């Protein structure tokens, strides 16, 4: 078979670029049966691409959308979609970069809490679709607790759905206020808040937690050893109660494993 470079005229590169750039000219080589301007027809594809992706973001970020209104959200999302179209065919993964985009989107600057609301919403989506995992067994837990030096060096393996939200704003209360019908309770937005997001069974939970619990969970999730994470949590929150934090996470079946590496920790 002779080797030919694959191409359609217009190349799919030209066509794809014209879909994402509303000001791009009509790609060459298109026609309509009645001789009408194919640009009007190309607009159907342009609209399908951009609106379907905005709809996907609106599904993922309902509270973010409620906070700014549909018109603002869709205008902001259309800029995002054109700059950062999906790199995956699985739309459940799309929009992870929206919170960072919102943080740099000048028209949203008057709402400095908006990126953290969006982070909370994306953490919920991730939790919803995360894999299943069995929590640590009673026996394994008892064994780990019986050896404090090893426990101190251990690394905690959390449920794949688990995420920690730490915000200088009251985004957890704000998000919660939008979960019920009717009037929204006013929220003192300048209070720092933290939450743990995880799935238990089929339900995604948003658990408000104190700063120490959030710090401990976030640090262990990032791979720090048990005792280092506990010390960091106590340093930022003198009232941090390690026992209460562990008990909450065990009750929610979030801890999968206490991985104890052989030998002393390096460094």
């Amino acid at each position, binding site marked *: 078979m002779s080797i030919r470079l694959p191409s359609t005229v217009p190349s*799919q590169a030209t066509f794809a670029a014209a879909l994402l750039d509303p000001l791009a000219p009509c790609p060459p*080589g*298109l026609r309509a049966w009645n001789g009408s301007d194919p640009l009007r027809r190309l607009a159907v594809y342009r609209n399908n691409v951009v609106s379907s992706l905005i709809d996907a973001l609106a599904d993922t970020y309902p509270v973010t959308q409620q906070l700014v209104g549909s018109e603002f959200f869709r205008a902001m999302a259309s800029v995002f979609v054109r700059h950062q179209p999906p790199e995956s065919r699985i*739309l*459940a993964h799309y929009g992870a970069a929206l919170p960072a985009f919102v943080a740099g989107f000048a028209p949203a600057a008057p709402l400095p809490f908006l990126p953290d609301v969006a982070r909370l919403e994306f953490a919920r989506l991730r939790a919803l679709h995360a894999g299943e995992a069995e929590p640590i067994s009673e026996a394994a837990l008892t064994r780990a607790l019986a050896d404090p030096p090893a426990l101190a060096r251990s690394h905690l393996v959390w449920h794949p759905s688990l995420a920690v939200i730490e915000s200088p704003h009251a985004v957890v209360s704000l998000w919660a206020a939008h979960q019920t019908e009717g009037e929204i309770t006013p929220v003192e937005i300048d209070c720092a808040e933290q939450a743990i997001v995880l799935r238990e069974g089929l339900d995604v939970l948003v658990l408000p937690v104190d700063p120490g619990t959030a710090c401990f969970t976030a640090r262990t999730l990032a791979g720090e050893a048990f005792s280092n994470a506990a010390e960091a949590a106590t340093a930022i929150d003198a009232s941090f109660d390690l026992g209460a934090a562990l008990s909450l996470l065990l009750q929610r079946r979030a801890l999968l494993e206490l991985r104890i590496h052989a030998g002393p920790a390096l460094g």
Partner: protein
Amino acid sequence: MQPSRIADLPRSRSALRVGLPAKAGIGLKPQHFQEVLATRPELGFFEVHAENYMVDGGPLHHWLGRIREHYPLSLHGVGLSLGAEVPPDEAHLDRLARLIDRYQPASFSEHLAWSTHGDVFLNDLLPVAYDSETFARVCRHVDRVQERLGLRMLLENPSTYVEFERSTMDEATFLAEVVQRTGCGLLLDVTNAHVSCTNHGRDVRAYLDALPLEAVGEIHLAGYAEDTDAAGDPLLIDHHGSAVAEIVWGLYENVIDRIGARPTLLERDNDVPSFGTLKAEALQAQALLAARGPGCLHRVRSHL
């Protein structure tokens, strides 16, 4: 180019061997999971978009698994990008293979379209030119899919809004040749046929006549929206957001008069109404199917 040797493919997947029942089915939506399980409506099958279930765990898999215990499943891909300039993505084929192993669908279908370019997924079904170069490419891609997944796939006719100056054959001829070359089946979307023929000033009955209707393994019916092009001529837009139009029901009856009952899906992906409304539409199709009987379905089965 060697056509796929479908007959030599593994025969382990019993559901695929049997195929979908020649009854009406509905596109399964998460908001209807619990009602389906609670009421167990008399439907032939459910269809899901494969990409929606390419997630690790959670409620989507939980509910689909339970519903699959009671109904045959049609797995419908929207992201394989068969018409792309590059071969089907192997990682995506792996994900499809895992879904097929897990859910044992009775059918797998995809579109004559492309939806990816480079690293970008465009989330729409984009048109290809109907020329010999595209034909050879699409055949290679269908061959690879059938080889990798070990099944005979169904290829769906698209809704299109533009045509290409370089096209040298019409869409029906292109599809007929791909079916003949690769041994794949057809997913005949009657709405897409009406939409594309209207949009390109063609006679839909001639279009249907030119298709290898004996290869139809499934039919799709959906709603469309009406717009106009730059000359003021009708431009129909396939939006899956409303009831099936009377004219499409008429074409559907004409098709099943000729080929007998075939698995028929009522597609609704936008402005999804209550399950009851969808079920009523499916029962309308079911009544038309029941009046026809199995027709020449054996001609489809003989390919498997």
